[in-house]
């Protein structure tokens, strides 16, 4: 089930964290993976190497997603690799968490350009390649903070709420050919929030607040992305699926 046999999927932000786990899970599902990264060349190459040991093909592509032209070039290069894309996962994202009154233009711009604009331009650039693909679909990465509020990181929360609505808008506009869905992780232990989960008190607070009693791991997020990209999810589009251990239930 949820076989991605011989599909070609571009994963942005795939060198680390959730993007890395997704890239590996898609390879386990039978996909060849275009591994996008920004600066972590060695990490991206190691993801690609791991994909090859799973018997699939992988190639790395670098770009700073805050730059629209760089994103377009990167997606074109990934599309030209196999002449098509069957899937796109937009996992590149950052978190900056100053208090609201200290948010400067830099934090705002960097967050919105990476998380929101970077996603938008990546999808736009991928559409022509997806139209040549088989059962094409897109999965964006939102956050539980796209629909539930927390104190701190307002630009991040704003960017993720916008990604959710972008997902729904594009699901409608790109139908019937291309499906667009999103997963909204809860608190997941990655580099993006290392300071948070390495703080023992905050670590406990999140674990207690989460119905399932623990932080998420990147590997908890990846299988849902694989399901959403699979043919078995052919009638699922515009969905934002929370993968958060039930943290909003409390």
């Amino acid at each position, binding site marked *: *089930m*949820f076989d991605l046999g011989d599909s070609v999927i571009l994963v942005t932000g795939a060198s680390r964290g959730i993007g890395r786990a997704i890239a590996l899970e898609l390879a386990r599902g039978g996909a060849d993976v275009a591994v996008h990264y920004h600066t972590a060349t060695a990490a991206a190459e190691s993801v690609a190497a791991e994909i090859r040991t799973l018997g699939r093909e992988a190639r790395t592509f670098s770009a700073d997603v805050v730059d629209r032209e760089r994103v377009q070039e990167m997606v074109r290069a990934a599309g030209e690799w196999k002449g098509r894309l069957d899937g796109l996962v937009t996992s590149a994202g950052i978190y900056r968490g100053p208090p609201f009154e200290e948010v400067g233009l830099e934090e705002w711009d960097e967050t919105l350009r990476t998380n929101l604009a970077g996603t938008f331009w990546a999808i736009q650039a991928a559409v022509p390649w997806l139209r040549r693909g088989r059962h094409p679909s897109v999965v964006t990465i939102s956050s539980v903070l796209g629909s539930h509020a927390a104190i701190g990181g307002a630009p991040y929360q704003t960017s993720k709420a916008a990604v959710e609505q972008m997902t*729904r808008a594009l*699901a*409608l506009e790109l*139908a*019937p050919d291309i*499906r667009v869905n999103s997963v909204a992780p*809860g608190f997941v232990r990655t580099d993006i929030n290392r300071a948070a989960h390495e703080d023992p008190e905050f670590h406990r607070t999140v674990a207690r607040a989460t*119905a*399932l*009693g*623990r932080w*998420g791991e990147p590997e*908890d*997020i990846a*299988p*849902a992305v*694989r*399901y959403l990209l*699979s043919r*078995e*999810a*052919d*009638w*699922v*589009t*515009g*969905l934002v*699926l*929370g*993968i*958060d*251990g*039930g943290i*909003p*239930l*409390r």
Partner: protein
Amino acid sequence: MNPERAVGSKVVLITGGSRGIGRATALLFAREGYDVAFSFHRGTDPARATAHAIEACGRHAFYRPIDAARADETAAFVTDARDELGRIDAVVANAGITGSLGWEGVSPEEWRSIFATNLEGQYFAVRAAVPDLKRTRGAAILVASIAGLTAQPEEVAYAAAKAGTISLARSLALALAPEVRVNAIAPGWVRTDMTAGLYDEPQARAAIVRGIPRGRWGEPEDVAAAALFLASDGARFVTGETLVVDGGNSLSWRIGRQR
């Protein structure tokens, strides 16, 4: 417990498993290696056919006619299914009925019947299985409907009951965490006996397709795959969620080709 059974095969329990979404779910889980217990209400022939199809996958089937609106019959079915098949790893609370059309004409009896089968029946099915689900760290999946997310002036009781299902999934998810995960699935227009009246009428069938961005009716297998995902280890961090499987139907007030 049946001593003939191989120890260790997973077991799914499905209410309303002889037809439609329930049947497709039973067969998909059977193909994926689950033994299947299912209830049905009327129609022994489709139930027997579903059981044979499960057995053709090399799996065990246990099935029984019950009124899913009755807590006592539901609990007895769950207990006997566990005794027969040894364990319960997933419950798919699927049994459902619709009522007559029109917001004004719902009698108190019809209202109660729709709520009893669609909503209460799900609660009692899950509740009866909780000790088993805790043992297996299993999952409950409640079949709701996009009728529970949207305005349905022609089917107010059905829609309200399905909205109740979505709420029930959230409350039970918190009540049963961390051992048992509980999620809902909200299907859109799926081709089953329940919707045959519309599907078989060309104008109604086409009007419904115009409302679906993906441009086709759903098949029971579309919903079954979502249930399989939610029951799987891959969904180990998913609880209290509603997985909408509707071809994009509920995204907008008027879909269609607006361009």
